[in-house]
């Protein structure tokens, strides 16, 4: 971010700097630059803690003796303290347990959808950028078309579709976990465009480079050139864009679940924990605070980590963009 210490200009910087970088692998240099972005480091630690808590949510709730689904109408809207560290919701369910289990769902959806979108976007962008010409024109017009869509209203329609009419058996269409996969697919369907455009732009310039020419001269197939020679060079932008999109996906999942179209109760997610909070806003405003705060903190942490990775993986881009 401040001192240009990457390999490219190490040779013409002061000797001290050169010694500082000698014997370091590129990965170590990336790690060094990332560690300098303090907010990103704090965010990464926070995300790891959240992920561990979510991963071990069943264990933690067992130890605490609470359950995210056990209804107890005698202890509705209990204040924090005692057996329920964060109090209970309108059905007497333990809030902490629901937040932990909701975190499992929200984080899973965020990463799964971002990853799916990245894979699809990379495929489209790579083919488009490498082959160019008509394929490129067709793919990019489709990408532009998807970008031009009113995202949120369309997501609502997609989430409201009756899977039965698409030929999915009724018992599958109405099972609890289908809402999980459905939301991953829906969000990935609209989220791949950023990566596709990024990958295409980079692939377009990479295919003119001499190492690609060399590979072509050796008779390598297009598939091999794309996967072995071009894809590794695209790792940095893909990693940065995917990290940043996890935050975006978590926001989309939470708003759809909040509107009743995403993750279906009783499966808790940070979004659908807020659905009832609005009706109860006069009686129990605190219920609306925790889930939203967790979404906020998680999304901002992913954004900071993405920003830090950008600084670390592509220092020259940072020099250009500030």
């Amino acid at each position: 971010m401040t001192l240009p210490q990457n390999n490219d200009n190490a040779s013409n910087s002061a000797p001290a700097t050169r010694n500082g970088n000698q014997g370091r692998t590129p990965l170590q240099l990336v790690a060094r630059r990332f560690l300098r972005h303090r907010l990103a480091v704090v965010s990464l630690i926070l995300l790891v803690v959240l992920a561990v808590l979510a991963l071990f949510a069943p264990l933690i709730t067992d130890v605490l003796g609470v359950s995210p689904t056990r209804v107890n109408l005698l202890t509705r809207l209990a204040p924090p303290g005692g057996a329920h560290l964060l109090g209970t919701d309108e059905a007497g369910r333990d809030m902490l347990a629901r937040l932990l289990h909701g975190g499992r769902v929200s984080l899973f959806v965020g990463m799964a959808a971002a990853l799916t979108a990245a894979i699809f976007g990379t495929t489209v962008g790579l083919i488009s950028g490498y082959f160019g010409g008509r394929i490129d024109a067709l793919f990019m017009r489709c990408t532009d078309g998807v970008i031009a869509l009113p995202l949120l209203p369309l997501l609502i329609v997609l989430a409201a579709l009756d899977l039965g009419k698409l030929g999915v058996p009724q018992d599958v269409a109405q099972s609890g976990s289908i809402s999980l996969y459905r939301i991953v697919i829906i969000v990935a369907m609209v989220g791949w465009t950023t990566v596709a455009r990024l990958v295409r732009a980079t692939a377009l310039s990479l295919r003119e480079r001499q190492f690609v020419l060399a590979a072509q001269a050796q008779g390598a197939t297009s598939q091999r050139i794309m996967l072995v020679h071009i894809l590794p060079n695209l790792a940095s932008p893909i990693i940065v864009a995917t990290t940043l999109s996890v935050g975006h996906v978590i926001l989309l999942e939470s708003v759809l679940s909040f509107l009743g179209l995403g993750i279906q109760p009783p499966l808790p997610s940070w979004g659908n924990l807020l659905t009832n909070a609005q009706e109860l806003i006069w009686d129990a405003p605190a219920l609306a605070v925790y889930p939203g705060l967790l979404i906020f903190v998680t999304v901002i942490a992913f954004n900071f980590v993405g920003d830090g990775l950008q600084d670390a993986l592509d220092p020259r881009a940072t020099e250009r963009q500030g």
Partner: protein
Amino acid sequence: MLAFIIQRVAQAALVLAVMSFVIFGLIGLMPGDPVDLLISADPQMTQEDIAKLREIYGLDKPIVLRYASWLAEVLQGDFGFSRLFARPVFDVLLPALGNTLTLLGISLSMALLIGLPLGIWAAVRPYSTRDYAVNLFAFAGISVPSFWLGLILIIIFAVVLGWLPAGGFGTPGVKVWGDTLIYLVLPAASLTLANVGGYTRYMRASMLETLRQDYIRTARAKGLSNRQVVLGHALRNALIPVTTIIALDFGSLFSGALITETIFAYPGMGKLTYDAVMGNDFNLALVALLLGTLVTLTGNILADLAYAWLDPRIGFGGHKQ
């Protein structure tokens, strides 16, 4: 120039046409159909009656034919009736569109009035404490779930302080201009806060980039004050990419207003679209979604035009840079 505009409008028309078919198909895949709704109103209907009804409404025909007949009516200016409101679709849509544009107009102006100066202010001293503070604020703005922000504003200003109404649009029976304004405060504030972070970041990045240009160094070498350099020389150029991004963003601002409108029960396009989809109001949902697409496409074309118009270095030859 004219050829460029015609080309872009033709492209947009094509996207709109394709989208109308896609949305038509998607709406057909939503739970229930108009006949199901009629059936539920009359429990004594036989299977034959149902089949006859479906025939009358043309629901037994393949989707392409149904789309064709819908399109034929639309091209004659007949957008059908809204089931929820029992009025022609456009009679319902137009006031809602007006409400949304009011809300967006206020929020966009506020977000720009706060975001742009903040971005410039941060860019003038990069990596200072002030810059970090602005960055933190901007990141918070783009990371906050807008529906939760709305809820928090309701909790603070309606529940705890009791200063402002929690939602709706106008006190029943009261028809004073100032009354409507009070109902606009929270939705507008919520939408402003949700968008100001993005504008701050764009402005900061663009200003930083501009301040690195050679002509800025020349201006400084002439002995101009920092203020003259930033506001007199850099600002105009720095605003070019920002204008483009704002125009490009208008579509997402428009569709993003859906959340804010739903939270605050504000009678705009977004809430209408949501209600139409949830209430099986097929005609209304279809036209509302298409209108949303149209707004987004218009924003994109305006972005391209603004870019070329503001920066003489860029021609109208299609791709930039």
